[in-house]
């Protein structure tokens, strides 16, 4: 199953490293990654594959949200389906 992870917050050193470390620890594979900095705000969008993950997806969502709070970032992980439903016919 594919999911989209979005990270939004104030830019600083090591954001990608922190988020990717958490993903790697839970056996989540990053398929695509893009990032940009807009008005000092860091925006990263990742497409990930959670098929091999050892924890339920809802649990991963919670872990990422908690990590976000810790790092003062907004981190969302959502199943890809919702974006496809909204933007693709």
């Amino acid at each position: 199953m594919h999911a989209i992870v979005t990270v939004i917050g104030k830019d600083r050193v090591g954001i990608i490293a922190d988020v990717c470390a958490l993903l790697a620890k839970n056996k989540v594979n990053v398929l695509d990654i893009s990032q940009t900095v807009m008005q000092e705000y860091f925006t990263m969008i990742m497409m990930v594959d959670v098929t091999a993950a050892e924890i339920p997806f809802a649990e991963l969502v919670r872990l990422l949200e908690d990590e976000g709070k810790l790092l003062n970032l907004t981190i969302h992980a959502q199943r890809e389906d919702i974006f496809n439903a909204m933007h693709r016919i």
Partner: protein
Amino acid sequence: MLSNTEILQTINMIDQQHLDIRTITMGISLLDCCDPSPERACKKIYDKICRKAEHLVQTGEDIEKEFGIPIVNKRISITPMALVAGASETSDYVPFAVAMDRAAKTCGVNFIGGFSALVQKGMTAADRKLIQSIPEALAVTDFVCSSINVGSTRAGINMDAVRLMGETVKKTALRTADRDGFGCAKLVVFCNAVEDNPFMAGAFHGVGEADSIINVGVSGPGVVYHALQSVKGRPFDEVAETVKKTAFRITRMGQLVAREASQRLDTPFGIVDLSLAPTPAVGDSVARILEEMGLEVCGTHGTTAALALLNDAVKKGGVMASSSVGGLSGAFIPVSEDEGMIAATRSGVLTMDKLEAMTCVCSVGLDMIAVPGSTTAETIAAIIADEAAIGMVNNKTTAVRIIPAPGKKVGDTVEMGGLLGTAPVMPLHTESSADFIARGGRIPAPLHSLKN
């Protein structure tokens, strides 16, 4: 491949513009719970609801987490209770409402609808008993919602039922006087009620439906409002197109959630109701959409036309996005639940007469309106009759959910709490309609009911 703009657009809709799934409502048939013994019937009702809806709340929360889309309410609708309770040898139907309430609490849902009767053409003894039980039933339960259908395009308007409902609304307000007549917020009087509506307080599970079913109501006034900001000053064709595109996106998401919930709960998918349902939160208002179209305050001249465009464009955009659209679908105008309408009412621009005109083109009717506690039962019945006439003649659903708040007068405010919001007490005409209501009988169905 999805573009970053698309992904961020969706996230903005959810985070900034209050996009949500307003409700997942499980419809459950209780026709197999009839029993001559009221105690046994109540036990069957409780057991069946709990068995069917056991995993409803958990499933809703799981989907919410995985898709990252808030699902605000999980609810249950049941077969109109008068049909089930009619088999029992009792004249007091309050215990049936209590059984519904207990089941709702066990399942963890926040409303259960269906303490209902359909009396558009005539009343059975059971219908009458149910209506008589409403004031007490709504006072002693927390989550039970009641609805009565008093008219339809095919049958006309049952004016005896209208009179009875005027009295019932009044009694319900007095019975819950300690909470400013809160019981009335859970009581709707319909014309042309629909059988698959997932929204409260008017949800019930029609007899033409399957044993159990999943209906989903989507919302998103904030998203439409935001989209319209990009077409400021442009002609109405562009406004309509913008609303259609937005409604399409919102409904696609509703369809996805509905399918997922139906699959996980092993319950057939019924319909997606694509309604713009406001909340008291700033930025989640239908009134502000109308104002964005160029009106200084919602309720001024032009409001009905703006609402007509909005209601129609929402349906046109949504209908292509779901395999099955139903329920009430359109734009709701519940006064106390809409931050812009509350402001417009306080400023005196939005009046009862304008709201009545707006109900000719919105998806339902006069909704969540507080009126003075001194309002008579006959005046409330006359308001119901006017609204039912609009529904009957225009082939649409109309409803009245009105709160004659005991002890309150024009200028006061009624606090409903939570999603039900804050209702400024509105002035009504004080001239009597008593002789009109005293006539009773039936207003015949219009000529265009004869379609066969």
